[in-house]
């Protein structure tokens, strides 16, 4: 018997050593360091590290930065798991605009109202502020701003003497005109796969037809009907139902489509070096419809402080530092991500370096947040499957909107 017990003891020792080694060699932060977790920033990490370096020197504390798995769904799961277990593994983290109400209600976020000076209050765009507020208190600081935009092939439109479309009819008309001479060209590509991206796209169709969740359902039905018409009428390729941000951007970037709906990040790739459509792409607000203004869904990231952090005060100061105007200006210059501050859009240095970004000022101001509620993520599951069913022609807009309404009331989403 002793031989076996000895073997097990050796095994246990080996296990601890190997796992320890993995963990040790991994990115375990030092004892007192602040841990900052955020999604993968597209581009060179140096600018962000310089900003953090400045904070470290100013406060004599080391900050440990970690990036998280890609998609918003996976990050939501990761944070939900760990915060529900009251983890202390990180102090500051970037969270999607749609999580703030849920995390605040669950008591996972520190109240940051005191951090937002009145000057900031007026300078920040209304939509990001709204999505960072829950029960009248501010639980996150807007960091980046995203909004749905329309990218178009300026050369092809010009060749047919067409101006960028202001309404969805104008867009449909433009597609027919251009496609007459380029049949292989897709008309309008956007994000139709069954995931959060589809909700952003569908809400834009809905809002731009004057509809909304829970109100003006007839207009809302028209909006969803138009979405279905895009596929049924072959304005969009049938496999738009598999496209997310990148596949649609790659498709447009290879000159396979006339119009693209995407987030501001796409501009850098489409206008950058090595892009097939460099210099032949324009961007404008998404089209509206007769009598209804254009609408763009608000996206982007806020900074929140982990309620169970061991060093909340320092974490709050780091948040204020990274979400302050100077830092946001530096990040806008480095990564082309749009800051949520009106003043920066008039900043001469920024307008010179990033003219495209400067032009977005008014567009971003009009962005509309998705319903702000702790149960939004749960409602989103219903939105995703209902919108997908309408897009695939398996369900009429009316039945889908009715199902959404039932879910909305059941989940008490305002």
């Amino acid at each position: 018997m002793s031989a076996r017990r000895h073997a097990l003891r050796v095994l246990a020792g080996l296990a601890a050593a190997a796992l320890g080694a993995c963990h040790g060699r991994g990115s375990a932060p030092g004892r007192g360091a602040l841990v900052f977790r955020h999604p993968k920033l597209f581009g060179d990490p140096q600018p962000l590290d310089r900003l953090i370096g400045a904070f470290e020197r100013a406060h004599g504390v080391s900050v440990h930065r970690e990036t998280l798995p890609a998609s918003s769904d996976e990050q939501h799961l990761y944070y939900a798991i760990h915060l529900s277990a009251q983890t202390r593994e990180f102090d500051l983290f970037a969270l999607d605009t749609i999580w703030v109400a849920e995390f605040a209600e669950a008591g996972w976020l520190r109240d940051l109202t005191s951090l937002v000076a009145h000057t900031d209050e007026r300078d920040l765009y209304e939509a990001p502020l709204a999505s960072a507020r829950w029960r009248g208190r501010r639980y996150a600081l807007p960091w980046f701003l995203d909004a749905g935009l329309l990218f178009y092939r300026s050369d092809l439109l010009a060749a047919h003497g067409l101006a960028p479309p202001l309404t969805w009819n104008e867009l449909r008309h433009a597609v027919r005109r251009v496609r007459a001479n380029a049949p292989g060209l897709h008309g309008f590509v956007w994000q139709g796969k069954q995931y959060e991206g589809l909700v952003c796209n569908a809400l834009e169709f809905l809002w731009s037809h004057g509809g909304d969740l829970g109100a003006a359902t007839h207009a809302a039905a028209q909006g969803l009907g138009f979405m279905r018409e895009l596929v049924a009428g072959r304005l969009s390729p049938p496999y738009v139902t598999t496209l997310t941000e990148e596949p649609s951007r790659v498709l447009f970037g290879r000159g396979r489509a006339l119009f693209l709906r995407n987030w501001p990040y796409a501009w850098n790739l489409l206008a950058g070096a090595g892009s097939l459509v460099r210099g032949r792409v324009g961007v404008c607000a998404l089209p509206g419809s007769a009598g209804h203004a254009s609408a763009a869904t608000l996206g982007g990231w806020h900074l929140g402080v982990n309620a169970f952090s061991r060093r909340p005060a320092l974490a709050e100061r780091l948040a204020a530092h990274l979400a302050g105007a100077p830092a946001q200006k530096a990040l806008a210059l480095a990564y082309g991500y749009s800051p949520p501050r009106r003043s920066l859009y008039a900043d001469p240095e920024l307008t010179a370096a990033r003219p495209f970004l400067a032009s977005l000022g008014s567009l971003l101001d009009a962005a509309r947040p998705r319903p702000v509620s702790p149960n939004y993520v749960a409602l989103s599951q219903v939105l995703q499957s209902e919108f997908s069913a309408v897009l695939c022609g398996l369900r009429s807009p009316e039945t889908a909107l009715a199902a959404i309404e039932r879910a909305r009331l059941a989940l008490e989403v305002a």
Partner: protein
Amino acid sequence: MKSHGARLEAWALMSPALALLGTISAVPMLYVVWLSLGQRAMFRPPGFAGLDHYLRIATDERFWNALGNTLYFAAFSVALELALGLGIALLLQRAGRARALVYGAVLVPWAIPSVVSARMWEWMYHPEIGVLSYLLGQPVNWLGEPRLALHAAIAMDVWKSTPFVALLLLAGLQAIPRDLARAAAVDGAGAWTVFRRITLPLLAPVILVAAVFRTIDALRVFDAIYVLTGGGPANSTETLSIYAYRVLFQMLDFGYGSALAVVMLAITGIAALAYARLLRAQTG
């Protein structure tokens, strides 16, 4: 070794395994049933929910859609795998010198992680630059068209799991004494009659084992489809596992999610019992 001492010794040797099995599968299984009777969702007061969740399942259209998808997926994939597997097994049985090479090739799909295989097929199913559309000569919306998506997932699973079935049936074929077929041939039976009268009946128990084994795996499929399509479009490829996972880990509704999991447990449990009884009948 039935002496009293031996019986004690046997359970002593088995205790570490039973302890680990208890904590990792038995206790969680019971715990999930208990969770399913309680209200345990974010922002809802916890409390006893009794059978509310199960009543809600009965009227949950998304559940019935997921159940339909799962059963359809399981039935079709297992049927195809058995048919193809039998064909391949018969071929493998006659593989002469190249046996090692062929076995190696056939083992590759089995060895590939299902997540990797899902990414591979996702790339092959790409509508425009995917190799399958290229071979067909025109873009096909494999994963984007509700009617096609589930069949695309079935094709992937058939490719991945047929080797396992083929090897199982091959072992079954090899267990049949060779002189039976020879005797039948001597008695004037043609290849087809030998197959139908001798090989098939004797192979039936192994076919049954392979069928039940694959059915259980197919009923609980998650990885492959979650990565291939995520359950879309329009929930056309959402299986019970994926729906339960979404409710548990995206809606963070542990009560209802657990109830879904318990229903799944029941379905695979019935299949598992069939397997256990079938096994005991075989071992006698």
